[in-house]
């Protein structure tokens, strides 16, 4: 398995050496962090813009219409136009809102999703940081987003926002359990929480195939729970337009609203990339053990393409859910989690543990 043309570890080492040779250790670290921060920020913004456009096009095609097609070729620059509009909008000051919390809330949401991106590997060696408790870190950090949601609802001084935020808070906290447990199933199979190890371990087959039944169940549960975590799809009653105007971000306008909006799409990207990494092999091409010729052909496709292809496939699935299904009510949503998904998850972990012990996986 030859990754030399696509291997970023050598590039990382070269960059490291350059910095440490020429600057004092303190400044080297500062420069390194700044560079990484800027690159991730840029990436974040670009992907966010692209995802908004993709959603509008996908939803339009499903609804028998065309979607944006005026600004730029095939409407490609529509999101940029929207962004400029949002930046120019007046920031409406709410009279009795808690100013500090009101202003902080969007930033907390953005920071939480920003931190989660850092740990995910895009290609071999191409990740900001490689924790040995990678998955745990990502789950922990993406849970911080709920603080931002609750603060937004509370500080808006508005009945609708409060109801929306409470609903959303209950929903996110409940579904984190399912997300964590379904990822735990794969950790049992992989034997490690470190992202790079998990991806390396899928070199001879993705976990969803290696772990057959329990891994597949875990994948389905993960998809459902992560859609609920990110307030998307049939679980979006926190921002249910037809009931409570816009839920917890009713009172936000301009750039702050843009942050919430962006954070929602980036959360979707993050959970999709976690699903792609943990279940579908991350940047690892599709290998079938035994078919060496096939594997060689697969290796020529760059890992970046594999990674983004899988992630966008999962994102497409999530968009498909949203535009097909009606919305669940809050009590049905919580019933789904506590009475159905949680028991399924627990049983699934036992099955997976059993499978691993008996060596019944590929």
């Amino acid at each position, binding site marked *: 398995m030859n990754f030399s043309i696509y291997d970023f570890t050598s590039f990382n080492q070269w960059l490291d050496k350059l910095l440490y040779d020429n600057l004092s250790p303190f400044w080297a670290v500062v420069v390194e962090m700044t560079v990484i921060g800027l690159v991730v920020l840029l990436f974040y913004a670009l992907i966010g813009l692209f995802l908004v456009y993709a959603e509008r096009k996908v*939803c339009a095609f*499903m*609804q*028998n*219409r065309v979607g944006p097609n005026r600004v730029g070729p095939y409407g490609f620059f529509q999101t940029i136009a929207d962004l400029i509009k949002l930046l120019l909008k007046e920031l409406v000051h709410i009279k009795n809102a808690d100013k500090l919390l009101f202003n902080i809330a969007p930033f907390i949401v953005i920071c939480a999703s920003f931190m989660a991106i850092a740990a995910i590997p895009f290609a071999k060696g191409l990740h900001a940081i490689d924790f040995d408790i990678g998955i745990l870190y990502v789950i922990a950090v993406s849970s911080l987003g709920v603080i931002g949601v609750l603060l937004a609802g509370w500080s808006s001084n508005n*009945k*609708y926002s409060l*109801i929306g935020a409470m609903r959303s808070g209950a929903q996110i906290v409940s579904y984190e359990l399912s997300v964590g447990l379904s990822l735990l199933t794969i950790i049992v199979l992989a034997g490690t929480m470190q992202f790079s190890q998990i991806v390396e371990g899928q070199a001879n087959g993705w976990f969803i195939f290696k772990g057959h039944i329990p891994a597949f169940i875990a994948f389905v549960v993960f998809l459902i729970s992560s859609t609920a975590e990110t307030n998307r799809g*049939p679980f*979006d*009653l926190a921002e*249910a*337009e*037809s*009931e*409570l*105007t816009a839920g917890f971000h009713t009172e936000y306008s301009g750039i702050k609203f843009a942050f919430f909006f962006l954070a929602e799409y980036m959360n979707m990207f993050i959970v999709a990339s976690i699903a792609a990494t943990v279940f579908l092999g991350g940047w690892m091409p599709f290998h079938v053990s035994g078919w060496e010729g096939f594997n060689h052909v697969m290796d020529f496709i760059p890992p970046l393409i594999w990674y983004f292809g899988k992630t966008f496939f999962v994102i497409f699935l999530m968009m498909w859910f949203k*535009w*097909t*299904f*009606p*919305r*669940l*009510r*809050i*009590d*049905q949503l919580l019933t789904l989690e506590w009475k159905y998904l949680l028991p399924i998850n627990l049983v699934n972990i036992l099955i997976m543990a059993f499978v691993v012990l008996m060596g019944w996986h590929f």
Partner: protein
Amino acid sequence: MKEVVNLPVKNIEEEEYHINMGPQHPSTHGVLRLVVSLQGEIVKSLKPHCGYIHRGIEKMCEKDTYPQIIHLTDRMDYLSAHINNHAVCMLVEKALEVEVPERVKYIRTIIDELNRIASHQLWWCSFGMDMGGLTCFFYGLRDREKILDIFEESFGSRLLHSYYTPGGLMMDIHPNFQKSVKDFIVYFRKKIKDYDDLLTGNIIMQERTKGVGILSKEDAVSYGVTGPSGRGSGFSCDVRKNHPYGVYDKVEFNEILMHEGDTFARYMVRMHEMHESMKIIEQLIDNIPAGDYSVKMKAVLKLPAGEYFQRVEAARGELGVYVLSDGNKTPFRMKFRSPNFSNLSALDHISRGGKIADLVAIGGSLDYVIPDIDR
């Protein structure tokens, strides 16, 4: 406007709070203000505040001649505009003892049924949208466009037609009318299967509508809830069956009755009604007799002194038109018994104990059109 919230001051507990849904709200389908008294997520009581689109139609009718009144009736329940026109035309014709040609009766019945299908299509798409399945909105409207195109070809307008006039029709139907309608029936029979796949069979939608907003048959009769909402509770109130008009006595169709009385029953009644309407149209469309499209009426219509009442089955229930005439060319008193007014009066009763999300589903299933409530 002075803001007065006159809720009965019986038991306002500490934890109750009031929420306004409307008058501008994405899901009340018009300008209606619902003051909902909530305890947590549970609806304790509900007070509708109507009158935002009260135009005084009944007062205007006292100054208008009967052909002019037809145009006002379009604008009450604008989604079943033809059926409203039909009621007033029949009332005037019966009062003047004028017999319209068979051709007119056939055409009026066919167009009424097309209007009913169009109205149910709009109901379906907005019901789906309220539930959160936004794709339903586009599918329903896309198919409704076909009916509106047929209307536009024949009489020039898409929503408010005033095509019926006392004595017959304003002009004859377009030569393509029969073919267009037959093509539409074939097209829609295929599409309505998509509706069932997308929304009816969806487990989320069923969970949200089964057992929600139950209206018993006694309550339906007492509140005067007619139309598909009443038939979903087992109240057999179809005016086309009980007091037939047009050529409804010559066609075979079923009156759809369900007995659970919940939102899902009301939903299914409307879905089946679309099938029944297509059945009626199919039986009539090839047999339209030749003849005049109108009887020659006097220029000025004066109804003999007395009282007249006409009942028709609008898309949402029983529309009643009452006229007290003193022999002049304008009615002395004209009253419209609007189906949506009575349907709305049941909303408070059936939404108590449910959640806000249920309120949206129940409102969608009662399918009220506000201009008909306010007149």
